[in-house]
């Protein structure tokens, strides 16, 4: 299988104005710290993590939409993304945003919103565009009569369908899905997730799927990256990650999810990690998870563990990975 998107040493930093520092001195918040990953054609790579993990920043950096200073190498189908012509890049890489209420311009009609990438990135004629828009509305399950409505006349799920249609308009190779269902009501989430899977099957799309919900990730992805404080702590294919999580953070994350299948009497079995993530401006030396880790030893406070292969399908950044 071919690699569509290849990311190496991706780092995103934000300059922070520091009141105590001398004039002109800047301190930096490193939101994403030298991460590597690649996405295979027609597959879904999920990035999971909690707030502040850097998952959304990393994805937006790939789409060249991140606000901070981005460094590293990103290649799309072998071509360097940063030197690629902007229009070509945007045509081949599209984004579905998190919040269907703020991601659609309230002053434009649904069809104009879907048509925006076509207007900016292609030289198609009006009739050609109309044909594409008709097909897109059908593909995402919206009615043709709804084309002229404004965003506020749609429900949350329908608005996300408009966002999906917009992302599909230029037939991109890769779609970045930034928490596409987390702002939707539970009953509507299933509609959108099923739609995304259907479109992937039919159009051979490649997804970079950002989520904090491991249930959704298990349902959607082929392989998974777990991020914590800007670093990848575990990278594995879906089955390995969910059956044999190697990093204590992954394990805690899995065990923290409330499940309908669990008997409440079994709550004692839950692995609770104490405390909160460290201050990103003042990271400890060594492993970033040490303060909350049940297995931390002296070495964890001295050396930052490297991401290393533990099986052919699973990499983990931990001095004491869990063994099975």
């Amino acid at each position: 299988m071919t690699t569509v998107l290849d990311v190496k040493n991706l780092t995103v930093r934000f300059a922070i104005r520091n009141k105590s520092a001398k004039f002109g001195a800047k301190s930096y918040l490193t939101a994403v710290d030298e991460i590597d990953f690649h996405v295979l054609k027609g597959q879904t790579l999920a990035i999971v993590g909690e707030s502040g993990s850097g998952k959304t920043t990393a994805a937006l950096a790939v789409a060249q939409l991140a606000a901070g200073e981005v460094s590293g190498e990103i290649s799309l189908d072998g071509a360097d993304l940063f030197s690629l012509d902007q229009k070509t890049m945007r045509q081949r890489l599209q984004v579905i945003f998190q919040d269907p209420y703020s991601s659609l311009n309230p002053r434009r009609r649904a069809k104009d919103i879907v048509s925006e990438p076509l207007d900016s990135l292609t030289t198609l004629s009006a009739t050609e565009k109309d044909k594409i828009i008709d097909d897109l509305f059908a593909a995402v399950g919206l009615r043709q009569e709804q084309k002229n409505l404004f965003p506020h006349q749609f429900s949350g799920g329908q608005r996300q369908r408009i966002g999906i249609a917009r992302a599909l308009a230029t037939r991109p190779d890769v779609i970045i899905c930034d928490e596409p269902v987390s702002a939707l009501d539970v009953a509507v989430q299933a509609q959108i997730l099923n739609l995304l899977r259907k479109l992937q099957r039919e159009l051979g799309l490649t997804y970079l799927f950002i989520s904090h919900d491991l249930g959704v990730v298990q349902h959607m992805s082929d392989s998974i990256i777990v991020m914590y404080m800007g670093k990848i702590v575990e990278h594995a294919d879906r089955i390995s990650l969910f059956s044999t999580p190697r990093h204590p953070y992954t394990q805690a994350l899995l065990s923290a999810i409330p499940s309908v299948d669990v008997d409440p009497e079994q709550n004692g079995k839950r692995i609770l990690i104490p405390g909160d993530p460290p201050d990103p401006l003042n990271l400890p030396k060594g492993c970033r998870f040490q303060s909350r880790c049940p297995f931390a030893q002296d070495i964890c406070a001295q050396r930052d563990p490297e991401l290393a292969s533990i099986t052919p399908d699973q990499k983990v950044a931990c001095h004491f990975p869990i063994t099975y």
Partner: protein
Amino acid sequence: MTHQNNDPIVQAQSPLSEAWDMFIRNYAAVAGLIILALIIIGAAFGPTLYPTDPFEMVWSPFTPPGVDGFILGTDYLGRDLLSQIIYGARVTLIIGLSAAIVTVVIGVTIGALAGFHRGLIEEILMRITEFFQVLPTLLFSMVIVALFGASLPMITLAIGVVSWTAVARITRAEFLRIRELEYVMASRASGTSNWKLMFFVILPNALPPIIVQSALMVGSAILFEAGLSFLGLTDPNVISWGQIIGSNRQYILESSFTVTIPGLAIFITVLAISLVGDGLNDALNPKLRQR
């Protein structure tokens, strides 16, 4: 398989027509709009219907209203006050409107540039705005008019130059808020260019408070012009309401009507504009539109 919902198809109602529906339900605003329309019609067609020359001495000075067929009486030179009010309405409204336009053009441009480009450009533009904000407005406009002459365009410009800062600040605040919204990022992801982002994506969404502010700006420009003409800083060849007050001010004790009638005209006009502005504010403010 995707399900389609079966709710009845609603008509596409644009945000603008919805705002109009909201506006029309606000009685005070509609009253203001009607008064304003009457004033504008009067200013436009009045001179044809009531062709008395406002500069000509037609009767003895200080004829009280209603006497000898002069509905509003005559001023200190025996000129017809009704005719002066009608002609003055044109000048007053034109100055109010064009000063507001100058204000909006300067304010929106500077506010939009400052709000869209963070960093150095923003710093420089906002320092300039603050500089204009702390200038004593009346004094500064008097200096401009005194230096460059009291012609109508110069008075308009003077009013515009001293009052654009409020519009600039509102525009910048709206730009700062909207540029962080996801639909702006979505437009960037769709390859939209920067100037299109500024003027076709962000600006239309920033318009509601700017519209409200500009409507109120018309009222305050009228008041400002009245203040300048009261102080004699006005084009002597045209009649405005402020100028009528200014030229009759010595006789305020003997014949107060020569001052109160144009004063009332200003008051009613500015009140009508404020009512319309408030109505626009309610209609365009989505927070008040819930339920």
